[in-house]
């Protein structure tokens, strides 16, 4: 654990009078799995949205790979190496699983419209390579057999996994996973935990939002806890679990405590 891949410095995000994120600072180190947890409405998904450029932050700074992300267009942020999944699945339903992954790789392609039109060798080579790469990713994530199926017809669990494969298709350094285990049964969660570790071992850095505590605690190297837009803890999973402020945020304070 050494250098930070992404660093949020005093990030504040306000919507009118509502402060979704108040002065939040944390970083994700290279090749780390960082769990981001917090009760509903704590601002977890907002963190993803400010990193990926959906929202422009009110104040503060986000440094990715040594450079600020301020004002960078969304697809260019992806090109620099950030890709995400969505909490509510947002695959391109009318495309096959393979096409979903291939499309996400668009940002890194060199062949233009014209060479595609005339079938220049660069276009054909690229097409072939992308297809192979997409299939590899589907295999890697364990859904290779579904490559020719339309995304909308896939079983729920496969769709969730395809979301991850699609994000990896964009060749990111930092992978943002937004509740990848939502709706999974315990067995599927165990499998997913293994997959996330495998992704890290393949050289990706992972920022994980998840509600399932056992999953987060099991896979994360470090956990950041948000509550009402404030960071209340940032430590190893074991220490976070025992942090009174975290317990308070999740369970509330006993009436006689104060």
């Amino acid at each position, binding site marked *: 654990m050494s250098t930070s891949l992404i660093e949020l410095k005093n990030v504040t995000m306000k919507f009118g009078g509502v402060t979704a994120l108040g002065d939040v600072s944390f970083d994700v180190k290279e090749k780390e799995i960082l769990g981001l947890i917090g009760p509903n409405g704590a601002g977890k998904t907002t963190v993803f949205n400010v990193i*990926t*450029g*959906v929202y422009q932050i009110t104040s503060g700074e986000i440094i990715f790979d040594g450079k600020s992300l301020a004002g960078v267009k*969304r*697809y260019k942020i*992806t*090109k620099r190496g950030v*890709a*995400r999944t*969505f909490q509510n699945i*947002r*695959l*391109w*339903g*009318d*495309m*096959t699983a393979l*096409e979903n992954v*291939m*499309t*996400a*790789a*668009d*940002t*890194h*392609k060199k*062949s233009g*419209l014209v060479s*595609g*039109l*005339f*079938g220049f060798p660069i*276009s054909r080579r*690229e*097409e072939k390579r992308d297809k192979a790469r997409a299939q590899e990713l589907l295999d890697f994530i364990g859904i*290779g*057999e*579904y490559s*020719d*199926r*339309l995304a909308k*017809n896939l079983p729920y669990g496969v769709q969730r996994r395809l979301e991850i494969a*699609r*994000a990896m*298709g*964009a060749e990111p350094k930092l992978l943002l996973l937004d509740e990848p285990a939502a709706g999974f049964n315990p067995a599927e969660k165990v499998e997913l935990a293994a997959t996330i570790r495998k992704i890290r071992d393949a050289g990706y850095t992972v920022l994980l939002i998840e509600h399932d505590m056992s999953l987060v605690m099991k896979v994360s190297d470090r956990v950041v806890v948000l509550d009402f837009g404030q960071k209340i803890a940032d430590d190893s999973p074991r220490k976070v679990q025992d942090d009174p402020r975290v317990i308070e945020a999740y369970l509330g304070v006993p009436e006689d405590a104060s």
Partner: protein
Amino acid sequence: MFNLRDKGAEIWESQGRVGRVAIAVGAIAIVAALPFMGGTFLNTPVADYESVLVYPIAMFVLMAIGLNIVIGKSGLLDLGYVAFFAIGAYTMGLLGTKTDLNTWEILPIGIAMAMFSGIILGVPALKLRGDYLAIITLGFGEIVRIVALNLGALGRSEGIQGIPTPPGIFGIEYAFDSHRIYYWTLLILILLAIWMVRRLSARRAGRAWESIRQDEDAAELLGVPTFKYKVWAFVLGASVGGAAGVIYASKTLFIAPDNFTLQISILILACVVFGGMGNIWGVILGAVILGYLPDRIRFLSDARLLVFGLVLVLMMNLRPDGILPRKKREKAIVKKDAS
């Protein structure tokens, strides 16, 4: 329900290279021979059959293919498509009467003008989405017509007259009443447009458009430069419309703002939706039917537009995805461990 599109795709995919070439050549031959079938049941009672083949049918097909890139592929609702048709036609009209350039020399200029106006319209308009985009394009279509109506250089309401016919090529002479020659010319342009769309659809651009149509935000967040692709869709759609306009002007020899009303935009949109948005064969079929039908049932005289409307309403109720809906068949899942 029986799916004509899937049946067709199945036959196509079951063929080898030779079979496919044979099917394509056969289909082109049949379509090219249509002008000779005027004596059959295909004949249109009042209008001249061969001239109906040129306009509206072939012209509608070409424009519908162009509009399909914008609406069917990328999901951008364009209600002002007629503007590009008009720009192509007026380019032909102006250059054809004021300069020595002939139709074949003006054709690329007309296409370039249409593409350029596609950028002019697209860059500001495509920052908006959905309904707002539709309204801007609607306005653009009207602006182009009103400019033509008020600009002295474009002949105001009189339009431009005496536009030259194309010069002969390969010993084929174009006279204003040699409809079949124009029909074959348009057929070549249609084939070129089909080739372009099919090529692009199968590759990077097609997938990007598809992702934009289905979920633009997700596309952008996964690294698809959505704005660039949307402008490209507009520009390519415009190029086809412009080409149609050039040929139209040098066929009718006379153009006026009245030829380029909102009604044309709506009709072409109807062709796309009726035939099956996003599927090029559906769109072509839709344009053929909607171009042909009003003339075929002309014996109904005044009731024909009523019947035409009824067919549209019925059709959209029974098959809301169009006659030949967008492809999406799945290959059988091949399990790796299947024995």
